[in-house]
């Protein structure tokens, strides 16, 4: 079963080069450890680069910013393919974070 591991954290942790390099290194280590389970994933540019389209019936409004204003924002995700939620939770526990943050685990809808 595939799971999206959605990483929510405070983007301001990565403003300086040193912490940026550090988290990249840690994500590489994570990728090596769980490479066989990971089937996809990306890091995202900051929420200030987000554009949100809100549709209300036929009307579409463009919002300069993320879907919801919050200190912790979606900053990246992994897609893993594992047999159970236990495995997905175990992998999610290893995802590096610079400070506080959350990993939301969402099972993907299957093909059948």
């Amino acid at each position, binding site marked *: *079963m595939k*799971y999206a591991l959605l990483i929510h954290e405070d983007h301001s942790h990565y403003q300086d080069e040193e912490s940026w390099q550090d988290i990249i290194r840690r994500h590489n280590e994570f990728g090596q450890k769980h490479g066989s389970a990971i089937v996809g994933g990306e890091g995202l540019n900051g929420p200030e680069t987000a554009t949100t389209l809100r549709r209300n019936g036929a009307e579409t409004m463009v919002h300069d910013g993320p879907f919801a204003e919050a200190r912790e924002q979606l900053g990246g995700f992994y897609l893993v393919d594992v*047999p*159970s*939620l*236990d*495995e*997905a*939770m*175990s992998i999610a526990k290893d995802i590096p974070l610079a400070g506080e943050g959350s990993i939301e*685990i969402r*099972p993907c809808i299957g093909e*059948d």
Partner: protein
Amino acid sequence: MAGPVDLAAIVGGKRLRIVAALSARFGNLDLAEDAFSEACARGAALTEAPRDWAAWLYTAASRIALDELRHTKVVREHRLGAAETEEGEMGETELIPDRRLALIFACCHPAIDIVSRVTLALSTICGFTAEQVARASLLSPAAVSQRLVRAKRKLAGGGIVFEIPDPRFYGERLEAVLTTLEIAYSRPHSSSATEGSDPLLARQVLEFARLLIELLPDEAEVLALAATLHFSEARRGARTDADGAMIPLAEQDPGLWDGELLNAARHCRSRIGLDNELTPRLIQLELQHAWCARKTAEDAPPWPRILQLYDRLLELDDNAFARLNRIVALERVEGAASAWAEFETLPAGQLENVPAYHAVKADLLASRGKLAAARAAYDAAITLQESDAEIRWLTAKRNELA
């Protein structure tokens, strides 16, 4: 037809086995329970009773579930091969795969909110109706139904598999099962953690604990919890006086304890291997065992042993509640002065909303002759306390200080 068939009575303890086998087979508890209900309805309309009701219901419910899956076009080819879909009438209950443990692990998965887990366990494992769960857990029937629907959706779509957990996750998963049982017994939000609640609920939870022993006969933590719950339940009849006021453990009349439940508790305890590492749950059991060793109302409470056990507990699990309980024993063993010195080191901020904190404080103040302060502390405890029996007891203690 001779008359209405009481399938619930006929199927009895087999319900769980059938629902578990269906859940594991189809990976869907909701579907399993619906198919089982429908099979029961069809069974009740039969003119001639089948040779083996459980086997008949399992076969009928399997067919109903398959029809439902075909109807909703979500038949997963890999799970429902041709051989499985074309089975004949089964004759023997024993042929129903025993997947009860897998179902218990699934319903008590740590990714399900603890209150929902308790609700699901009471409903699916113990067979309570939503109304019974509501009455036992102090939630509204609507809240119970909503929690059940959400939890079952998560079970169906969240990747919680109906299998015995992998050894890497086994410890954590078993802990989640045991916590669910503990909270189901003591009722969520209860301040008197092991004192139990509704008698019907308590009986069902004990049965759940016994089932868990049957399925995991060598697990020390399971035996320890089952023994603790049996000890606690054995004292039900001695916990309140004729006016409905609580009688503290140390003052209870052992003649009013239930001998059968005590024996069951001691039997569980005797099955625990001596080479097991000491855990907080094993110490809790030893505390219960020590309390229940008194034979008559004249026997002195085992305070020195209780103090010793709380010392051991704090070595393993230092928390404010255990320290508060230890202080009660310390007062009886070493006197109010030592106990007060310890009391002053407690994290007051963490305990100020706990009625027992104020009750212990009141008792220590009274022992040291500070009656006005003691009365104020009893008042604080009475205000916070929700249990009628404990309010009556606290009020009586307060009034003794006149």
